[in-house]
């Protein structure tokens, strides 16, 4: 096959959703294989590996993100029904969740306020711009809620999505190791902390640990989304007044 024919095939395929949809799945399968090869080590995070490879491929081929997303949106869409499916592990752990309702609510309030307000305070004190700080504050919350909150605070929705993903990857990589170091090893506490601080990506990590851990993470993700959406929009102006 000569170069012209190759170019022609590439020009045709690169304009089709099929190419980037297939590559997204193929890269993910590779990332899962690497994750297994690394013995399930959290640093071999499948989201981190997949995103790194795909960004490299897009930059090398000069493909704009929008064209990539035309194909990848079919995978992105599955996030909705998969979030609904979290009800199944929640249901199987329901008795235990209900029996711990009091401690769970207290841990939710402490953790949620700590994550949101500290992001805002540290960002402001280190001199980040106002839109950046407003986009940072809801970063522990699942993407669609975080984007909505950031817009109300004067942040940028798409930048918030990036912070949310980076936070998720960071938490998924380090959470269980750090919690173990301070003596927190029980499934409930590890799972709840993962879901609260690192939303869906933390929840994916929690399911790698056990179904019970995953159920607590899913609960924390949902509750923190709700709690942050209600509290952060009026707490942040208060915080801003104190810092200034």
């Amino acid at each position, binding site marked *: 096959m000569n170069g012209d024919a190759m170019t022609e095939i590439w020009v045709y395929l690169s304009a089709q959703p099929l190419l980037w949809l297939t590559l997204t799945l193929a890269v993910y399968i590779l990332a899962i294989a690497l994750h297994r090869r690394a013995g399930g080590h959290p640093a071999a995070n499948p989201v981190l590996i997949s995103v790194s490879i795909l960004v490299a491929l897009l930059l090398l081929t000069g493909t704009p993100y929008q064209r990539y997303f035309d194909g990848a949106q079919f995978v992105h869409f599955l*996030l909705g029904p*998969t979030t609904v499916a979290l009800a*199944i592990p929640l249901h199987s752990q329901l008795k235990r969740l209900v029996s711990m309702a009091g401690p769970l609510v207290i841990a939710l309030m402490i*953790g949620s306020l*700590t994550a949101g307000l500290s992001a805002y305070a540290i960002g402001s004190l280190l001199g980040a711009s106002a839109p950046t700080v407003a986009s*940072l504050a809801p970063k522990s919350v699942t993407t669609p809620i975080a984007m909505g909150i950031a817009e109300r605070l004067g942040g940028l929705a798409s930048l918030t999505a990036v912070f949310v993903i980076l936070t998720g990857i960071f938490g998924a990589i380090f959470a269980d190791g750090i919690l173990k170091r301070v003596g927190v090893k029980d499934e409930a506490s590890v799972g709840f902390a993962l879901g609260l601080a690192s939303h869906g990506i933390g929840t994916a990590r929690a399911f790698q640990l056990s179904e019970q851990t995953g159920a607590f993470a899913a609960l924390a993700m949902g509750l923190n989304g709700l709690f942050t959406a209600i509290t952060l929009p009026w707490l942040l102006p208060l915080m801003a007044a104190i810092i200034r």
Partner: protein
Amino acid sequence: MIQAIALLLAFQLAGETLRVALHLPVPGPVIGMALLLVWLVLRGGPDDALRGTSGTLLQHLSLMFVPAGTGVMLHAGRLADEAWPIAVALVASTLLGLLATGLSLHFLTRHRSGSPR
């Protein structure tokens, strides 16, 4: 499998409808998750098809974040300009959030007669 997917989508749709109708601050899928949980309690649990399909989807929850995550390339400029404050704020606040949540739940529940399993 098709029935299970249709059921999940129907609950997501119900969630979206409620969100728009009542101006709720929570996304449709999260409301759908809560509605499905109520339905499972009333029904006494999922059937095998729903359990199987949900298990497969949840096993690959990581995959669903890849398309949005790849969007990081759009913000390379701002991330580089404000790399320091962003990195410190993101890492420190996530660690604080993790520790505050994990430690408080751990201490609030440690006196219980040993957690099951």
